[in-house]
């Protein structure tokens, strides 16, 4: 790839050890890579290979035992807890496997949540941004629906809107389609591809090898190390795949 593109994420020999009793678990054993602006990266690997641990590093929820991590040019390793909280608030959008919406709370309020911790937004700007994000994920007609009044796919789209609302440098998704059926998974994937097309940087952790075909790059982890890092020059269209799925019976 052309080297003049902007580097959003840079890892330099990142290691993460966990002490469990007297033993040390090496969850990451020296991981280095750069992720450029506008990439859609899938991270794959067997269970226990360190995917979530890596994502927690990228999301500034955790700090490396050793090695350097630069997010949008700033070093994260030396940051305090509250500095990292601020960084997450401004630069990162999370999408979780189990949605993690606030209970009994409307879609708009859920999406507003990250902006609540950003004092440069006032109430009306917050709402405006939240509505825009919900429109972007195709939920313009579900603004006031509460989280328990929506389907899994809708909830995940609210979660994606929440990850978009702060206009982050990178969107991090851990098994974002893990709880969804095939059809809904593809709908969510279509959404991610749309965001990719709009120029957003996405890192998507998954078990499902199929998904890698819809991303622009795939990183394979094994035992805390990078096993394979390949650019996908033949990105499939999730929208086409969705159209080719067998139609549900009661349609």
């Amino acid at each position, binding site marked *: 790839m052309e080297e003049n593109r902007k580097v959003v994420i840079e890892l330099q020999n990142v290691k993460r050890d966990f002490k469990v009793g007297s033993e040390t678990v090496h969850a990451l054993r020296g991981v280095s890579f750069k992720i450029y602006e506008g990439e859609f990266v899938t991270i794959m690997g067997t269970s226990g290979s360190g995917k979530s641990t890596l994502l927690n590093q990228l999301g500034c929820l*955790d700090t490396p035992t050793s090695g350097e991590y630069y997010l949008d040019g700033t070093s994260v390793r030396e940051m305090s807890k509250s500095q990292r909280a601020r960084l997450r608030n401004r630069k990162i959008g999370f999408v979780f496997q189990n949605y993690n919406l606030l209970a009994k709370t409307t879609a708009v309020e859920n999406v507003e949540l990250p902006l609540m911790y950003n004092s440069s937004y006032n109430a009306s700007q917050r709402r405006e941004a939240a509505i825009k994000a919900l429109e972007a994920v195709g939920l313009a007609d579900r603004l006031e629906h509460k989280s328990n009044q929506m389907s899994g796919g809708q909830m995940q789209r609210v979660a994606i809107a929440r990850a978009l609302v702060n206009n982050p440098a990178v969107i991090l998704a851990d098994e974002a389609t893990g709880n969804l059926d095939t059809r809904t998974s593809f709908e969510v994937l279509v959404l991610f591809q749309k965001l990719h097309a709009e120029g957003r940087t996405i890192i998507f952790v998954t078990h499902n090898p199929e998904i890698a075909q819809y991303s622009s790059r795939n990183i394979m982890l094994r035992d805390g190390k990078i096993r394979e890092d390949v650019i996908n020059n033949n990105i499939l269209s999730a929208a086409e795949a969705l159209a080719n799925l067998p139609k549900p019976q009661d349609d």
Partner: protein
Amino acid sequence: MNFLNLIKIAIKAIRSNRFRSFLSMLGIIIGVAAVIIMMAIGQGSKESVRQNISQMGTNIIMIQPGTDMMRGGVRPDPSSMQTLKLEDYNALLESDLQFVSHMSPEVTASGQCIYGANNTSTTVYGESVEYLDIRQLEVTDGEMFTNDDIKKSSKVCVIGKTVATQLFPDGSDPIGKTIRFKSIPFKVVGVLKSKGYNSFGMDQDNLLIAPYTTVMKRIQAQTYFSSINCSALTEEVTDYAIDELTAKLRALHKLKDFAEDDFTIRSQQEMMDTMSSTMDMITIILVVAAAFSLLVAGIGIMNIMLVSVTERTKEIGLRMSVGARGFDISCQFLIESIMISLTGGIIGVLVGYFASILCSTLFMLPTSIPLWAIVVSFIVCTVIGIGFGYFPARKAAMMDPIEAIRYE
């Protein structure tokens, strides 16, 4: 996160667990209401006692025989209670006291009073004419006896309203009638204006006032007084008047410099203060007892907040991952616990207020809620909210976002 949003979140959290929040508020409600009621009754009684005493006249000074019991503490022998003699009174009368306007020696006797077939038990006060001015009494029918009556030890008296109605139930005019007190005949020359009951429940109209000479010689056969009542020129010079009287009496009794007074002088003001501070003491004890229930209520809040924090671990993890700092999280839970205790406090003040109104109408207890008690209640509730919310809030703030968001 700004303050208004934190309050909104707290309200939402409290409302989504209405019953539980109410139960933890209940402790605060009961505690605050108890404190308010105790204060209302304490303060109310104090005010009514003060009012009663000041109605009697705040410039009254009482001279009593014997050393001050409060200071001495030694049980007095009977002779030490006979130090106020007729000579003392006469000497005081002759010396020109600057700050004393009136003076009346007092000898009392209790017993049956009879007129015809009617009788009543009452107390006769042997006094001088000036007694009326000192106690601010008025003779409505007839007249007060005179200094001449005192000189001659005449068997005359003025009677209180209660005595009048007891002895003359048919409403006939007592003036000029001769009643008998302990079989000694007294001619009624006047009837006192009614003063009603005082705050200790004592009937202030059940009395006879007769010349002190008459009571001393004809009833008690004694040469000493049970007290001498004086009034200071004004309330402000009461202390000077006391000093003046003390110096004079010490000289009369020929007391050496180091000797203690063999009499005790107290002003009404002083009595009122003693009374007030006793009432204050009782109030404080009651309020402290009630305040302990607030402590228990605070522990209840802490308990509920700990449950709330644990229940919302996942929410805490989510908030942290989207950028909430530990500080934001602890504020959120602190505001919630403050809201619970403050709401409880507001309801408690209202309950206490209505309960004390109920007390005063139902049991005729005088009540009054000082404004500062309400302000202090709110401050205390806020402090409880912060104090007992701090630990749960800190627990929430210290959570690790990765573990918290995985919590099921």
